[in-house]
């Protein structure tokens, strides 16, 4: 019993810092609807700034003063980020800001490396709080007790702020109804900035407060962000009490998991999230998202049309050129192009459900990596000929998409996105931990193509035919009744249902088709690289695809493909440089600000302006 109590205390101590960070994220989402993936970066900044201040300021006052100042400093940085990066793009399409925050992550990572160097910093001890107290005979670190004791005050402080102050009234009003805040005569822009600064400050405080239990390092940002999102989603996006309950729940379950199921550490919280979302689709205390509440901001998508004669001729010409590429290009350019085509198909498959279907998936890599693994497992364990194993890539990915889609499709918006994320994490952990079959992160290696495809040139044609074929097929489907039905369900689910369209079923089928296509890309990937590792199933892989789709332009048909091409080239070029992440982050932010409709969308608008036509009439 004493042991159990001590475990509970450990969980509660962990929860306090997590709750601080999560409450910031939840506040920011609730008011601004920004899915702020850079939140972990503010947490990391809090840790580094805190360490630096504590080195300068000695004693009790120095320690606690440093924590206070850290929050203020990070809040200020948050405000600057909001004003410079996010404010220009609030009118951009749903979740577009997410891409910008990803750029912010990259910039902050490199700036932190530049300022603080690469070495990990051990957090300073809180003065007078080194060592333990014994509670029922069990040792409990003093600082844990202080953290636990502080949490109710933090909760109370936030509660007071939200329910008893004018700022709180505005925040709640904005969470309920964004338009209303304008009606209250409040400058919405500054409210957003203020809330973003407050949320960032909370992350900064969380980073500084955890210092005596850990330290500051360059991996903190990615390490915490997953946990924080899980907490916020389990609690219900935008709900502070929900975030608190979820922080405690996850922390305590983690402690129990460590003791009784030690190898569960990677997936436990994602399992909890999946279960909660399946039972309660809007989290524990979240409210239903009103359809269209934060969807389809900005100009509506223009009607689509297949290319006319000229367009088709241009495409045919380009295909011929690509077919002739091996005559002039060197080996590496062919390989770069193979990578580009594979990534383009992967991105196009995500774009299919995201752009055409309005389903934002955070876990699309499960199908890309799943397809790659399916083929690789057959080759590795059964020496299956490549020709057959390859077919299993799209097949297995499609089946996986059917399974995952069955659970996810009933959810909407951010919750849908997070459930796909949870499932992709489960798939990832399967590949990562089931070493007997998957070899864990040692990966499956020596998965090379069959003899007649083993040369770069034959494999180039193989990729060209299947990859371009897949992309063209998806385009064709978008123009077919199925694609129209999918779009109808996105534009107005109510109207679609009222004309006999089973929206969920259409989306389910589209999700599966996207899975098949991602799996096809995964199959081409694994045989071009000769190996596959769990990295292909990681969150980062899903986000790569997500980002290129947004960069290319969600509301355009070529967005995914163009974004993928753009990113492959930019990355290939930038990673040669010392601070490439900083530059890549700045490029992403610049694209987001300059071209809020994405690359293709903005080019199209510019073209339309140049031609002097409004985008009212569709070209026949």
């Amino acid at each position, binding site marked *: 019993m004493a*042991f159990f109590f*001590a*475990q509970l205390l*450990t969980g509660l*101590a*962990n929860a306090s810092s997590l709750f601080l960070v999560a409450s910031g994220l939840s506040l920011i989402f609730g008011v601004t609807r920004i899915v702020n993936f850079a939140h972990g970066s503010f947490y990391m900044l809090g840790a580094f700034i805190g360490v630096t201040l504590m080195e300068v300021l000695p004693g009790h006052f120095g320690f606690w003063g440093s924590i206070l100042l850290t929050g203020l400093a990070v809040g200020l940085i948050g405000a600057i980020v909001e004003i410079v990066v996010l404010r220009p793009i609030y009118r951009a399409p749903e979740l577009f800001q997410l891409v910008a925050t990803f750029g912010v992550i990259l910039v902050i*990572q*490199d700036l932190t*490396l530049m300022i603080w160097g*690469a*070495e*990990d910093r*051990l957090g300073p001890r809180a003065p007078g709080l*080194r060592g*333990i107290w014994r509670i029922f005979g069990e*040792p409990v*670190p003093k600082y844990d007790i202080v953290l636990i004791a502080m949490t109710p005050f933090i909760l109370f402080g936030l509660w007071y702020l939200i329910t008893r102050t004018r700022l709180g009234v505005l925040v709640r009003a904005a969470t309920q109804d964004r338009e209303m805040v304008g009606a209250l005569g409040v400058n919405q822009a500054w409210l957003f900035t203020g809330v973003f600064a407050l949320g960032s400050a909370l992350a900064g405080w969380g980073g500084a407060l955890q210092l005596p*239990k*850990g*330290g500051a*390092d*360059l991996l903190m940002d990615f*390490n915490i962000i997953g946990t924080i999102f899980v907490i916020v989603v389990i609690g219900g996006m935008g709900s502070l009490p929900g975030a608190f309950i979820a922080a405690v729940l996850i922390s305590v379950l983690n*402690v129990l998991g*460590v003791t009784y199921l*030690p*190898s569960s*550490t990677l997936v436990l919280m994602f399992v909890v999230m999946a279960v909660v979302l399946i039972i309660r689709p809007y989290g524990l205390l979240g409210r239903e998202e009103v359809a269209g509440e934060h969807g389809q901001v900005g100009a509506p998508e223009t009607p689509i049309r297949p290319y006319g004669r000229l367009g088709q001729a*241009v*495409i045919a010409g*380009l*295909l011929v050129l690509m077919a002739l590429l091996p005559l002039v290009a*060197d080996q*590496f*350019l062919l*390989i770069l192009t193979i*990578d*580009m085509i594979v990534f*383009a198909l992967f991105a196009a498959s995500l774009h299919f459900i995201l752009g055409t279907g309005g389903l934002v998936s955070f876990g699309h890599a499960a199908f890309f990596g799943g397809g790659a693994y399916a083929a690789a497992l057959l080759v590795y364990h059964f020496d299956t000929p490549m020709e057959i194993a390859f077919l299993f890539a799209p097949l297995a990915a499609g089946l996986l998409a059917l399974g995952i889609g069955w659970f996810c499709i009933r959810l909407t918006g951010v919750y849908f996105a997070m459930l796909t994320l949870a499932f992709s994490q489960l798939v990832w952990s399967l590949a*990562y*931990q089931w*070493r007997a079959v998957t070899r*864990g992160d*040692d990966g499956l*290696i*020596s998965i090379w193509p069959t003899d007649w495809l083993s040369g770069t040139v034959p494999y180039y044609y193989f990729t060209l035919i299947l990859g371009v074929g897949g992309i063209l097929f998806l385009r064709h489907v978008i123009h077919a009744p199925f694609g129209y039905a999918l779009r109808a369900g996105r534009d107005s689910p109510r109207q679609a249902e009222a004309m006999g369209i089973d929206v969920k079923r259409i989306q389910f089928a589209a999700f599966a088709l996207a899975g098949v296509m991602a799996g096809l890309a995964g199959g081409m*990937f694994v045989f071009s*690289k*000769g*190996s596959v*590792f769990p*990295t292909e199933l990681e969150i980062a892989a899903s986000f790569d695809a997500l980002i290129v789709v947004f960069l290319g332009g969600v509301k355009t*048909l070529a967005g995914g*493909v*163009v974004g993928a*091409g753009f990113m492959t*080239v930019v990355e*290939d*070029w930038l*990673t040669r440089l010392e601070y490439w992440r900083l530059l890549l982050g700045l490029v992403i932010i610049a694209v987001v600000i300059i071209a809020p409709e994405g690359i293709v969308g903005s080019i199209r608008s510019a073209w339309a302006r140049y031609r002097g036509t409004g985008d009212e009439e569709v070209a026949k």
Partner: protein
Amino acid sequence: MTLTRRMILAAASALAIAPVAASAQDTIKVGEINHYKRMAAFAEPYRKGIELALEEINADGGVLDTELEFVFRDDQGDPAEAIRIAEELMTREGAVMLTGSILSNVGLALSSFAAEKDYLYLAAEPLADSLVWGSGNPNTFRLRASTWIQAAMLAEEAAKTDAVKYATIAPNYAYGQDAVAAFKENLTRLKPDVEFVAEQWPALFNIDAGAEVQAIERSKPDAIFNVTFGTDLARLVREGGDRGLFDGRDVYGLLTGEPEYLDPLGDEAPEGWFVTGYPWYGFEDGTPEKAFVDAYMDYSGETPKIGSLVGYLTAYSIAAAIEEAGSTETEALIEAFEGLEIPDTPIGTLSYREIDNQSTMGAYVGTLALEDGAGVMVDWEYKTPDGYMPSDEEIMEMRPAD
């Protein structure tokens, strides 16, 4: 339009890259692929070690009377990315061979790639045993003493004590799992009555140290085998120290004594742990080990890490192989590497075994102590891998037919 833009971009990329691919072969180039960003703390000293070696080698006339050059590229910690870069280094940059990688998965990917395309890959830092054993191939050589060897050295020491009940804690990925398995196998062989009462698997760089410490304490072990490193180690040491987990218990720490991981612990370095590491501060004047340390500190202005030594030895291994081969052709290089002997390195003579392409680099073992508010290894000893390796028959069994 889709294809239009892709083509334009591809063409643009070709143009953008073209100037880089200056093919004038005035130097011998080695392609080096590593995780300079995501694991900068480990990769930077390694790079400086290489640069120091190159300075010395080229001051001495280079190799085959040509300047030796390393082309450093960042792989973002992604095996697929690493393979693309490897291809570019070999076909565009004119690299004659590949080296690098700290992460085992990238090392394995490069190894498989090298075998398929018939390139030469010297795995400098990755520790995975399978690189030269279970997944070994003729095109891959490895410098550093692998997980098995280092774990076996610790197990040997553990077997000398009375401890019977062991707890293990290792990051939840291949390296951690291999290390625990190797430690268990070696220890059980040496001391059949040992019992493993707890196995903890925290997520890599995301340890919940308080909970892990409680869980280990609950199993009441006599001794603990630690594989965590980096921030995980710092948190474990702090929580475990506060809660008295290590009091009266022997602890064996894989890599814990390496400056990369020991230095950040400062005055909280856990005294009494038996560890593998790199006691650069303990070398005596006049030894080649000390000479390297001095040269490195002169060159970089920093104290050396184990990565510095590995980088230095990597460059010298490659230089020696090229000289030996008398050519930069892959086939000749592979032949040169097999059984290659490099005398007078900081760790004495370094050679590459013919049986499994593994080098004879060993490891330093010793006990942690605190001196002037910093952790150091005392009573340390350099051990060569001899006697810790599986038998030749076992290795032949594991290694796919060459």
